[in-house]
């Protein structure tokens, strides 16, 4: 009888497990890669903050030095980013209150400018740092073109 032929359930658990294990593996790998993505984002933010701090301490002089420092500070997570996509756009210096005041009296001549250079020797800097993240393989299925990250940094630096 046919029903008897198919009533043997030996191996059913094995088949179910074979079906579920790849799903579990995908889920676990996806979770790990998802976490790595956040870690990469975090490493990028940290590197940006560290570069800004060094710039404020007069250890970095220009945008290219900042770019190099950001890339170097990302360490292990460099493999998740494309170095060519790292760019910094510098905004106009912040209109600080003191600078606004002294800019207003700049018209008084070189003496006013000289006094300004002695009295107000700090200035504002603002950057927008962007980079393209190349996500790990499973996440890359969702984001084939990569994920753009952006970070805004604003700081006052002394001495100018």
């Amino acid at each position, binding site marked *: 009888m046919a029903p008897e032929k198919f009533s043997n359930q030996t191996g059913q658990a094995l088949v179910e497990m074979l079906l579920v294990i790849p799903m579990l593996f995908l889920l676990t790998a996806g979770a790990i890669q998802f976490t790595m993505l956040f870690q990469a984002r975090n490493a990028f*933010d940290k590197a940006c903050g560290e570069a800004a701090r060094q710039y404020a301490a007069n250890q970095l002089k220009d945008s290219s030095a900042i770019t190099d420092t950001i890339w170097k500070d990302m360490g292990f997570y460099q493999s998740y980013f494309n170095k060519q996509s790292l760019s910094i756009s510098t905004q106009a210096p912040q209109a600080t209150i003191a600078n606004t005041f002294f800019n207003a009296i700049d018209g008084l001549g070189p003496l006013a400018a000289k006094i300004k250079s002695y009295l107000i020797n700090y200035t504002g800097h603002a950057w927008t740092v962007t980079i393209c993240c190349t996500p790990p393989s499973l996440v890359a299925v969702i984001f084939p073109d990569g994920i753009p990250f952006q970070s805004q*940094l604003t700081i006052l630096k002394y001495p100018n």
Partner: protein
Amino acid sequence: MALFIGLYKSGMLYNAKEQAIRSSNLTALSAGAVYANGLQIVRLTNVALLLAAAVDILAIAAALEITGGFSLIIPSQFKDLNTRKLVQDVQSILFGINQPIGIYPLLISDETISIASQNGLKSTFPSLNPLSWSLPIPPSPILIFNVTTLGPGLAQAIVPNMALKFRTANFFSDTVPKPKKIYKYKSRKDGAIHYLNSDQVELAPNSQNKGQMRVKKGVGLEGEGYFVAEEVNAGLSKLNAVINIANFLAALQLDVTDRDIPAVHNIFVYASYPTSIKDPQNNNAEIQTLSQVNVLGTGLAAWNVNDPPYQATLAPTDPVELVKQLSIQTLLSQAISSIKLPSISNIFGTVVNGP
């Protein structure tokens, strides 16, 4: 799906936490930069004060005619021009020394609040509503100035200050006793003379002398009840002479110096960082951060003007600093949660949206 949503939320919160720390660190460094610039201005004004003192000394010397040629240049009717006072008055107003608040400390606050908002920190100060007479609760960012030396009381540290004072002339003379009280009366008991001040005597009028004073009774003074004589030439007695010199030196203001020994110049920035992540009450979650910056340099005296400028450095996040910062954060949280400022409706007893 639930797993990935949880992962996404926790990942976003983790990133937001790091961004909040970075933002408050950059804001604190900016505050330190403005503070450091201010300390260099202190040095420059001290140079101006030194020059003013030189002018005054020359004028006095000319008036005394001890310098020969100078007396021909400077009219002798000028005794003390006291140009120092002018410079000291400017320093006092600019840096808030012996004043409730100074112009420069206010500038530090304003610049820092401006930078805080540009770094994504919550800035509630511009939204002050004069009609409701209420401050934003909690205000953000809160700046705490030079808190280390002020102990647990944060009230003074919230007022912008630069931890400065005028150096007084008694700084140079440790041998002169510190001025306490001027002794105005003396009594004689068993041949010994006791000097007393106004607080230690009381009126004991009699028919011959209605203004007679005696040693106060019941406070354990030597020779209580004995009549006292007023020190007519109090300023000439040796003791009073020394004390008067001490008082004079203590009152003689020189240049601006650090309020604390060793010098302490630091700023804490306590701020909220808004995120787009919803909390269980469906409000946007906010992260509280605290950063400390120390402003370090060689000194504020006029002769330090060519030294390297003051530098702002972030406080290390070692366990000792963390404990200190956490205690300040707790104090602030308690203070903020207990603040209840009256609104205009509370003050006038009016009912808003009433019938």
